[in-house]
């Protein structure tokens, strides 16, 4: 590649100026990310200046095979898959549906689009507090509606399954706008003429969607599916603020955090600052994400090739 700015010593100026950003990236992000695997073979703690020993596969053995803790871990793993399943499917379907609604010539589409996307910028703290209040079990608005049906719910403070379902709902509420925006961008690349042509050929609304819109949406379908699946497998921050460490609600991402950084709110199983063990849990989650992510990607690619053929 040709380079125009000076010769000799001034040839090094780009290198000099790229250095701060590059070094920061290596030291703060890339290096630590790869080092997670290394730490998973040690007994590192969170104590300043504490000694770190190489303990081989001990962390993995404990995580996967030892007694009650391992049983809890498998339960957390299963729960992570459950969370991923419900969140990605519902968020995908709802995001697509809402995008289709907003892709019509309706009044106020800009307002709706802005409103549904807003939670994405609010962040976990505000989202959590808003929903703790909206799901207030002592006469809050949702509780009032539930009462109309002669029932009563504790929501986030209720049984583990009830609290877990609430987090699934809030996770979808918070991220549906993201899926919707990507689908909207995809829908806007489909020209009206193609749809019109299908209609003139006598296709029904469903047929237009099934045989024209849906295949043409393939790029956004793939992007959204992969992002939803990976994102929901790794999600845990809402659990931290909305319920805290409670048996029967943790997902794997939260187990990593709880083991590595301790957990203040009434825990039984989480020891504080077991960073090596937490790193092992983190790698287990990473492998899970990798396997599911790659499998999904493989099938999506095959589908895309079939559609193009």
């Amino acid at each position, binding site marked *: 590649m040709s380079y125009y700015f000076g010769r000799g010593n001034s040839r090094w100026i780009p290198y000099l100026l790229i250095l701060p950003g590059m070094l920061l990236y290596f030291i703060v992000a890339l290096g630590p990310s790869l080092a997670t695997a290394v*730490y998973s073979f040690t007994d590192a703690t969170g104590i300043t200046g504490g000694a770190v020993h190489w303990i081989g596969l001990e962390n993995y053995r404990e995580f996967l095979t030892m007694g009650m803790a391992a049983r809890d871990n498998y339960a957390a793993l299963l729960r992570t898959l459950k969370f991923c399943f419900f969140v990605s499917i519902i968020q995908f379907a709802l995001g697509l549906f809402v995008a289709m609604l907003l892709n019509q010539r*309706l009044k106020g589409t800009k307002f709706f689009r802005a409103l549904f996307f807003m939670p994405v910028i609010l962040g976990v703290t505000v989202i959590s507090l808003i929903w703790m209040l909206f799901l207030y079990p002592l006469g809050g608005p949702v509780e009032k509606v539930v009462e109309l049906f002669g029932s009563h719910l504790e929501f986030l403070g209720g049984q583990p399954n009830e609290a877990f379902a609430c987090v699934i709902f809030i996770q979808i509420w918070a991220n549906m706008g993201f899926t919707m925006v990507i689908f909207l961008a995809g829908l806007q690349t489909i020209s009206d003429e193609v749809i019109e042509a299908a209609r003139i050929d006598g296709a029904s609304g469903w047929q237009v969607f099934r045989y024209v819109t849906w295949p043409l949406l393939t790029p956004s379908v793939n992007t959204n599916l992969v992002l939803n699946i990976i994102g929901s497998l790794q999600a845990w921050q809402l659990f931290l603020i909305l319920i805290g460490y409670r048996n029967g609600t943790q997902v794997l991402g939260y187990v990593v955090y709880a083991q590595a950084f301790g957990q203040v709110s009434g825990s039984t199983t989480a020891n504080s600052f077991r960073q090596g063990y937490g790193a092992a849990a983190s790698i287990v989650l990473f492998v899970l994400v990798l396997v599911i992510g790659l499998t999904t990607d493989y099938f999506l690619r095959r589908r895309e090739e079939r559609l193009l053929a």
Partner: protein
Amino acid sequence: MNTTVESDLASAQPAAEKAPVTMRRIRLNWVHVGSYAVLLVLTVLYLGPLLMLLNTALKTLPQFMRDAAGLTATLHLQNFTDAWQKANFPKYMTNSLLYTILATLAYVITAVFVAFPLARRYVKAGNFLYTLFLIALFLPPALIPQFQLILRLGLYNKPLGYILLFLVNPIGIIILVSYIKTIPKELDEAAVIDGCGYFRFVIQILLPLIKPAIATVTVLHAIGIWNDYVLANIYLTSKALYPITRGLIVFQGIYGTNWPVIAAATLMLALPMMVLYLFLQRYVISGFTAGSVRG
């Protein structure tokens, strides 16, 4: 003869078209009605929680205890002053602003000098370095070794250590690189002929040209820092260093039942973001979705 045929056609065509058009209009209207109904339900779900927040923030505590869902009868603005004082808001807000501004500024400046040579291949192995940013999204989380690093650097519970964590953002680099690629390379050539150096070119010529990308990256990065709760929870243990998010969750833990004051505090945290979002919506949405659009 010719004219009559034409006029026949002219009069026949609109008539033939008219029937399906009116039929379709009726059907379309029903679709629209249904669409609006669904959108209304969703609007209740999205606006409701926010209105509940506002409603609660204007109530007195006894009023909230008596009827949590009911419409407020008062404009109890004292909640806001209470939250401001009791939640230590001025301190936390200053901290949040400081972290956000300093880290975003430092990040954007370093990022431009990373993105420009990568987009232009002005450094050796530029393609490889760029790939390192692309794969970042698929690597295991850096959380634990990062903590060990900060601990060993003696930066635990120090503002500098916390800010250091926010000087990195692969998606920002990807956005900048793809935008810089749209700026013609002839510009570099022309600038050199006029005797412009590398540094001056980036600052005086490139920067004004990539303003939209800079805005997108700045907004995206700043929102990420402003909203951070987890890292603040891990790295900042002194109350005096809390950003507003952590301050608010701690406050909620203490005043767990006093929802009117907590709601007022939450509103004060969310408001700057919402105003920013309202005015910079285009940049915000493109920033959040840029990393996900496949090239």
